[in-house]
């Protein structure tokens, strides 16, 4: 019932947007659908775009479930990619690609975990709410990226502010050279399963949910909620960092100031639409992936202009939050639907 309403509202929001911009509705919808599912290119694009959203979305689930409002997915993703690029710069040519790639991903996770762990520590030890600190850290991360591609990681003095491109054998496995789809989607799906098992099937996962639901109750029951809070932030940051590493070694192959695509920000709607549940994230991540692939296609090939893509994405997000059951970490309904 609710999902039907959501679908209807999404459709309406879309049609309204198109009408507002004076675009032919039927044609535009066709372009949208084609971009997402029209052919193997569309489907592969949908999956490729869903990949970072799934990983960052899972990251948000973990943190928010622990009661930590991590809004820094974007920063953690960026820092993850930078960490990965630093390892790549240090080891490129010294280590063969198939070995280097996992090292890059591991570095990305570590960098993301440290970045978010800092925010966790700030909240726990210094009383700085993560909502605030992670927002601030996002901007620091963006500048860190800018600085590192202008400075230490720049491929060559005087060249463009970018890192050297990764050789093909260091990139994640691709299933077809013309397609965008890469091995990252497999990593993301495995992550969904692991996070589900963790949250609902392990003692640590239970403690994490408990601390999020009531840190006072956790304290009164001698659960080290501060450690859990920091741990959840680190886990969350590790997933976001991994998203950065996967995007770097799966799609872009190098870093520049244009690297951040907002996946980290979009992780929040993805996680909320998914009901802060890892399996929900799987669905909402795919939905947003399709939406992005589709709207990109629409923006490219309709007469609306490329800026239209933002409008469509915004409309889709707003339609979702207008209808999605409200979710607030501390009051997340644990009850089965």
């Amino acid at each position, binding site marked *: 019932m609710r999902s039907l309403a959501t679908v209807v509202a999404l459709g309406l929001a879309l049609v309204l947007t198109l009408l507002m911009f004076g675009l032919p509705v039927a044609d535009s919808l066709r372009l949208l659908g084609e971009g997402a599912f029209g052919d193997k290119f569309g489907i592969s694009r949908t999956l490729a775009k869903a990949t970072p959203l799934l990983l960052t979305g899972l990251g948000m689930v973990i943190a928010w479930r622990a009661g930590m409002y991590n809004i820094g997915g974007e920063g953690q993703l960026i820092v993850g990619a930078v960490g990965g690029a630093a390892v790549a710069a240090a080891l490129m040519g010294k280590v063969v690609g198939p070995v280097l790639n996992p090292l890059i991903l591991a570095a990305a996770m570590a960098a993301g975990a440290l970045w978010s762990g800092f925010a966790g520590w700030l909240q726990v030890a210094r009383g700085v709410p993560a909502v605030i600190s992670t927002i601030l850290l996002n901007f620091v991360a963006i500048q860190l990226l800018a600085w590192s591609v202008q400075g230490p990681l720049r491929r060559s003095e005087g060249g463009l502010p970018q890192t050297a*491109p990764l050789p093909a054998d260091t990139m994640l496995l*691709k299933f077809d*050279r*013309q397609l965008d789809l890469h091995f990252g989607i497999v990593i993301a799906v495995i992550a969904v399963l692991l996070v589900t098992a963790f949250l609902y099937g392990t003692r640590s996962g239970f403690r994490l949910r408990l601390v999020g639901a009531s840190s006072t109750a956790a304290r009164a029951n001698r659960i080290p909620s501060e450690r859990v809070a920091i741990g959840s932030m680190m886990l969350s940051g590790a997933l976001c960092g991994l998203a950065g590493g996967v995007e770097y070694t799966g*799609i872009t192959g190098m870093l520049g100031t244009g690297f951040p695509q907002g996946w980290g920000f979009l992780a929040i709607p993805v996680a909320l639409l998914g009901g802060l549940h890892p399996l929900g994230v799987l669905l909402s991540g795919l939905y947003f992936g399709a939406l992005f692939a589709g709207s990109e296609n629409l923006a*490219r090939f309709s007469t609306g202009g490329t800026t239209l893509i933002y409008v469509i994405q915004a409309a889709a997000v707003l339609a979702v939050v207008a209808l999605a059951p409200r979710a607030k970490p501390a009051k997340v309904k644990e009850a089965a639907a």
Partner: protein
Amino acid sequence: TGGSGSSSSPSVSPAPGAAGATGDFKVALLTPGPVSDAGWSAMAYDGLKAIQIDLSAEINNQEAKDTQIRDAMRSYAQKGYDLIFGHGFEYNEPAIEVAKDFPDTVFVSSSGGQTAANVGAFRFYLEQGFYLAGYTAGLATKSGKVAMIGGDDVPSIRSTFKAFKAGAEAAKPGITVIEVFTGSGQDIAKAKQATLGAISEGADFVIHQANAAAQGVFDACKEKGVWAFGANLNQNDNASGAVVASATIVAGPAFLNLAKSVKDGSFKGGIALMGMDQGAIDFVLNPALQDKLTPEVVTAVEETRAKILSGELTVPKDEF
């Protein structure tokens, strides 16, 4: 099946290759900034429009910076585009890479040093225009200080600034050339602030590479009563009334000729240097403000222009 794609062609519409049928010719343009920047990207967009009209091509364009470039190129190639322009040297390397996977699409970047059978480049020698602007500023400055305001700090911009500086020094040895970057080609307020900063340090001629933020530069010049140069497009008629001359790129013919060669199948990779001699670069004095420059200055500038055109004077440019 990874890596086997080089022999298969995109499935959307069989690419017509170099010798496609009319009406079926598809051209895409990638720009580093919004095409509404009334500058670098806008100029390329005008070139694309010319292709649409003259060759009745289907055109499309998108903004794509560094890491987004490959993705955008791939998506056009997947859609069976025949020619993909990347407006800037940063598109050259991605073009080389993506072109391997899409042999039926031609990739061209504005500047860049690598080519392949289906990858070409043309480089706008805008440094020539900037040199003349610097030369003009050097002759006309009273304070002995001139300034350059940059948006994004990228090599192509730095190269034009070097030429401006060389021109200024040629005209007035020992001149101070101030250089300030704002980090954004869209932040008008910062551009104005940076310009005010340069003017407060004594600059009385200012050139910019700030694209959409250029109005901030002109505004500051107008406010403080100093002169500005336009860049990329002819900005002499800017409402500020502060632009004495512009160093311009005339991109239309270059884009059109290249597209024609792709369409009729005569395209063969390679790099073309597009300078004043091809009419691709110009330095246009503002007739309305001609009286602000002494006749001697105008004459000297024209002499230098002639030297550049004749090849007697080679304006420095960076390779990147």
